[in-house]
C-alpha cells in the first residue's frame, strides 16, 4: 500500500515535470525562499537601508529639511559641543546605572523570596508583573501624579503627621532624574524577578542538598552555589535593561518632559527634540547614530553568542 502511493507520487511528479516544465517546478522548490523574501526585503529597506540613510544625514548639512550636501563630521562636532547633549549623556549613566542595578537587586530579591514554596505565588507574581503590561506613558503619568509636590506623597506623609516632610524631586533639577529611576524600576523589576525565578527553578537541587549536608547555611548556599549558577541570568537581565535604558524615551516624556531646566534629558529625548522640535535634523541624526552604536555594542555580541548557543543545542 505504502510503496504503491510513493510510486504514484513519483510518477505524478515526473509527469508534472514533463508537462508544466521549468517555471512551475522552480516555483514549487523555491516557495519557502519566496515566502520569506518580502520580509527580508522590507527589513533590508526599513532597518538596514534606513540605518544607512540616517548615517548619511548625520554627515550632511540637513537642518529643517534633508540637505545631502557633504558636511563631514560637522554635525558630530555640533552635537558634542551642545551642553544639553552632555546633560543627556551624563544622565544616561546616572539613570542607566541606578535603573539597571536596582532592578536587578530588587528583582533578584523578590525571586529568592518567591522561591520558598509560597502558597500565594501565583497571585503575587501577577501583581509584580502587571506594570510590564502598561505603556511608559501610563506609568509616567501615574507617577507624575504620585510625586506631585503639592498633592502627592509629600502631602500624604504630612497628613500622616510629619509636617515638615519634603519630597519635591520632580521639580528639583538636582533630583528629578531619580524620579525616572523610581518609575523605571517600578515598571521593570517584576520582569527581572520573572527572569531570575525561571533561573532559580533551573538550579540543580542535588547540589543544594549536598551543600546542606555539608553544613552550609542558607546564605552560604545562595552566595557560593546558587548565585554563581545564575550568572547567565544576570547577563540576560543586564543586557535587556541596558538596552531598555538606552532607548528610554516615553517615560521621560510623560514624567518630566526633560525638565526642569533640561535636567532629565536623555539621548533619546534629545534626538527627538533636535530633529522634530528644533529642526536640527543633522544633529538629531548624529545623536541617533550615537545611540545606535551604543545599542549595537551591547546587543550584537549578546545576540551572536545566543544564536551560536541555540545552533549548538537546537537540531
Amino acid at each position: 500500500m505504502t510503496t504503491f502511493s510513493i510510486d504514484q507520487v513519483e510518477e505524478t511528479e515526473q509527469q508534472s515535470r514533463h508537462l508544466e516544465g521549468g517555471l512551475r517546478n522552480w516555483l514549487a522548490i523555491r516557495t519557502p525562499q519566496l515566502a520569506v523574501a518580502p520580509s527580508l526585503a522590507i527589513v533590508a529597506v526599513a532597518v538596514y537601508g534606513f540605518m544607512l540613510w540616517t548615517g548619511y544625514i548625520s554627515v550632511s548639512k540637513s537642518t529643517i529639511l534633508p540637505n545631502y550636501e557633504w558636511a563631514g563630521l560637522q554635525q558630530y562636532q555640533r552635537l558634542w559641543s551642545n551642553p544639553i547633549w552632555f546633560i543627556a549623556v551624563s544622565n544616561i549613566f546616572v539613570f542607566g546605572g541606578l535603573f539597571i542595578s536596582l532592578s536587578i537587586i530588587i528583582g533578584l530579591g523578590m525571586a529568592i523570596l518567591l522561591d520558598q514554596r509560597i502558597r500565594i505565588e501565583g497571585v503575587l507574581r501577577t501583581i509584580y508583573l502587571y506594570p510590564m503590561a502598561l505603556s511608559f506613558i501610563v506609568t509616567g503619568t501615574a507617577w507624575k501624579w504620585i510625586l506631585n509636590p503639592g498633592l502627592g506623597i509629600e502631602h500624604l506623609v504630612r497628613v500622616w503627621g510629619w509636617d515638615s516632610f519634603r519630597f519635591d524631586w520632580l521639580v528639583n533639577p538636582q533630583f528629578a532624574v531619580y524620579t525616572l529611576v523610581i518609575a523605571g524600576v517600578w515598571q521593570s523589576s517584576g520582569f527581572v524577578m520573572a527572569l531570575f525565578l525561571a533561573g532559580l527553578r533551573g538550579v540543580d537541587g542535588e547540589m543544594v542538598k549536598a551543600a546542606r549536608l555539608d553544613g552550609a547555611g542558607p546564605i552560604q548556599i545562595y552566595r557560593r552555589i546558587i548565585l554563581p549558577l545564575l550568572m547567565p541570568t544576570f547577563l540576560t537581565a543586564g543586557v535587556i535593561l541596558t538596552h531598555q535604558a538606552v532607548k528610554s524615551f516615553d517615560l521621560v516624556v510623560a514624567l518630566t518632559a526633560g525638565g526642569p531646566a533640561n535636567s532629565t534629558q536623555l539621548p533619546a529625548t534629545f534626538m527627538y527634540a533636535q530633529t522634530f522640535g528644533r529642526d536640527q535634523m543633522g544633529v538629531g541624526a548624529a545623536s541617533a547614530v550615537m545611540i545606535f552604536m551604543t545599542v549595537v555594542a551591547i546587543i550584537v555580541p549578546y545576540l551572536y553568542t545566543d544564536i551560536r548557543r541555540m545552533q549548538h543545542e537546537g537540531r
Partner: protein
Amino acid sequence: MRDDEIVLARGAGHLAARAFIYVALIFIAGVYLFPLVVVLLTSFKDLDDVRGGSILSLPIRPTIAPWLEAWNNACVGLRCTGLSGFFVNSLAMAVPSVVVSTLIGSINGYALTQWRFRGADAVFALLLFGAFIPYQIVLIPMARTLGVLGVANTIPGLILVHVVYGIPFTTLFFRNFLISLPVELVNAARVDGAGFFRIFWRILVPISIPCFVVSVIWQFTNIWNDYIFGATFTSGDGMPLTIALNNVVNTSTGVKPYNVHMASVIITALPTLLVYIVAGRYFLRGLMAGSVKG
C-alpha cells in the same frame, strides 16, 4: 522541583523566618499596587476632594464624572472631544497590525524551520537584528518615506510602520517555537504531495496555536503602548491613545483636573491590563521569548 528548605532548615527560627518572608512579599505587593490604587481612587473623586484629601484617602463623594469627562470632553490640545476617538484610532491601528505581523511571522518561522533552505540561519539573523535597533535610527527616513507613500499622519501609515518593525519579533517567536518541531511531519506531508501553503494551513497553524496567542498578545501590548511612532508620524485627530493621553495631561490650562487625568490613565491602560489578566501566562512567555531565550 527542588526541596523547599533552601533558606530554612527546620528548627527554632523556622516559623519566624517564614512569617518574615510572607510579610516582605506582601509589603512588596503593596508597593506594586500603590500607583494603581492611587490612580483609581483619584479617578473617582471630585476636584475638591482631590485637593482636600490625600492620594490614599477614600473618595468622600464617589463619582464617575471624571470618567465621562475623560471619555467625552477631555481637551487634547485645543479640541475638547474626549478620548473616545483616540481609543478608536488605537484599535484601528492595533488590530490590523497585530493580525498582519503575526501572520507574516508565522509564515517566516515555518519557512525558516521546516523547509530548511541554505542561508535560513543568515536570513533569521538579519531579521532578528531588527528587533533590537533603537527606533531613533529609523525615525527620520521613515517620516520621509511615509510622506512619499502618501500615508503620513494616517492610520494605514501607522499600521505599515508597526507591521514592518513587528516582523522581527513575530518571526522570532515562531522560529523559536517551531525549531523544536521535527521536520518529519512536514516531510511526510510533502511526500503525499501537499504544497507549502497547504501544509501551513492544515498542519502548522493548528500546531502553533499557543505561539499565535503569544505573538498576538505581545504585538497587541507593544503596539497599543507605543508612543514614539505615534508621536512622530501622527498629529491632530489621527493620534493613537497614548499620545492623546500625554496631550490631555499637558494641555490643561488653569486648574488641572487631576481626577480626569487619572481616569484617562486607566482608560489608556485598560485594554492591555485586561489582556494581561486574562492571558498572563502567555504574556510572560512572550516577554521571555522577546528576551531572545528560545
